[in-house]
């Protein structure tokens, strides 16, 4: 959500201004996309050859932020922890 919002922080509706603030912090900390992120962004031209250099730059920055999420979503997980199965809501 935002010019600096990253895919991993997006949310339908207005998830929270807190997530936007986090995205701002992340973006300011590392403004330059990595070569891998740029390469992956360029692959998106396969779907839309009209993507502009600025759009590709923005996608690349988002890719880097997306790939930083791993340690946070993995933290605290143990080998026995299951996935939410079919996401049935119990009583």
């Amino acid at each position, binding site marked *: *959500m*935002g*010019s*600096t*919002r*990253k*895919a*991993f*922080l*997006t*949310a*339908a*509706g*207005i*998830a*929270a*201004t*807190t*997530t*936007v*603030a*986090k*995205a*701002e912090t992340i973006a300011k900390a590392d403004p330059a996309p990595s070569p891998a*992120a740029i390469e*992956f*962004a360029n692959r*998106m031209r396969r*779907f*839309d*050859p*009209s*993507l502009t250099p600025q*759009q590709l730059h*923005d*996608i690349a920055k*988002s*890719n880097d932020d*997306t*790939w930083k*999420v*791993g340690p*946070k*979503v*993995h*933290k*605290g*997980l143990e080998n026995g*922890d*299951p*996935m*939410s199965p079919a*996401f*049935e*809501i*119990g*009583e």
Partner: protein
Amino acid sequence: MTHEDLAFSDATTLGKLIAAKKISSLELTNIYLDRLERYGAKFGAVVTILHDRARAEAQAADQAVAHGNRSSALHGVPYGVKDLLAAIGGPTTWGAAPYRNQIFDYDSTVVARLRAAGAVLLAKLSMVELAGGFGYDQADASLTGPGRTPWNRAYWSGGSSSGPGAAVAAGLVGFAIGSETNGSIMNPSNNCGVSGLRPTFGRVSRYGAMALMWTSDKLGPMARSARDTGLILRTIAGADPHDASAKSAPFRTASARPRIGIIAKSMDKAQPSVVANFKRSLDILRDFADITEDVPHPEFPYGEVFGTLLSGECASAFRDLIDSGRSKMLHSPDDKIGGHEQYATLAVDFVDSMRQRAKIDKAIRRMIAPFDALVHPTQPTVAYPVGPRFSKTYTQWPGAVDPVTSANLAGIPAMSVPNGFAEHGLPTGLGIIANAWREPQLVAIGSAYQSRTSFHTRRPTLQQ
């Protein structure tokens, strides 16, 4: 009653007036159709007005009343739906240019159930394009332009159920159906000063609704009173052979004197006016509930978990749109590339997020277990202004906790009821969360609160 009084009555009252033959469904429908024509575009609230269908359903409802065949308490009451629900009679645009001419030849289950209950479908209401799945950052991210709150047109009606919020607040419909994946009922209910109920995941069938995130999409009522939301929910709830996630779960009786916990830090980093209104709400809640302060909100990477799951599911749901390059037809600059950004989501992060979600689910239920409900300010600020990027607005008030996201990850229900007014004449909301399948408790608390306050009965000046 004047036409204005009728337009701003709640659905429960309208149903009684129709039953008592004090007004016909057709008369009421014509009043709302006129108001939709006059004010719908002004607040960016409407995509399509269904004149023919509405009048035909209203006439059928009146004939049934004449023969003593009233179908339900909502019989003859006109309503609108967010334009992500399929309905015969007009396009279903999902709020997005690539789907501008999309037509379905069937009614979604929610619309079909309301039709069976005798309610009258007036209009398809506006929404953020694709319900915000691609990461918009401005109020104009919609096929129909920015949604504007009827309390002050310079400010956003909220998203992604923008039209349902504005149309209910402006008295353009008797009630509305919105949807929420993460905040899309709660936020516009807050911004428009209406009563919104996000049901438990699985309470309401999504058949015929746009899919954004299968494991979090919910449909729910937005109305002018908490009691309305309970009535509407019971009409649309239940198992559906077309949606395996939908269940016929019981509606449990609400506690007479509820135990309510205040989520710790929910007033931190919130706009002072929002905090002041919330504190006044707590004083009213103490009148009929036992209050416990500082209930800890467990710490998890909610934003990252939700965002990762949304990215994976949303990109899958809209894969055809992204792969065809047609996502560039979306309005918001962020949405034009959002799908391409979501393709970078790693499978391992998606799986880890699902595993975190299982832990979050347990932790949130443990947090709520000693209580009948938890409360928090619905949003840390009043509505965003139309124009500037959200990420550049109210940056000093980001909120310290995010109970909207945590509760959505756990699939549990919530309600927002208006609890006052603040900067620029904008409304604020009281957020209430209950454990799974306990919507009656939310309705009871919201109704008890509204029996002691009048915020939900106030009317915006539409001539601004």
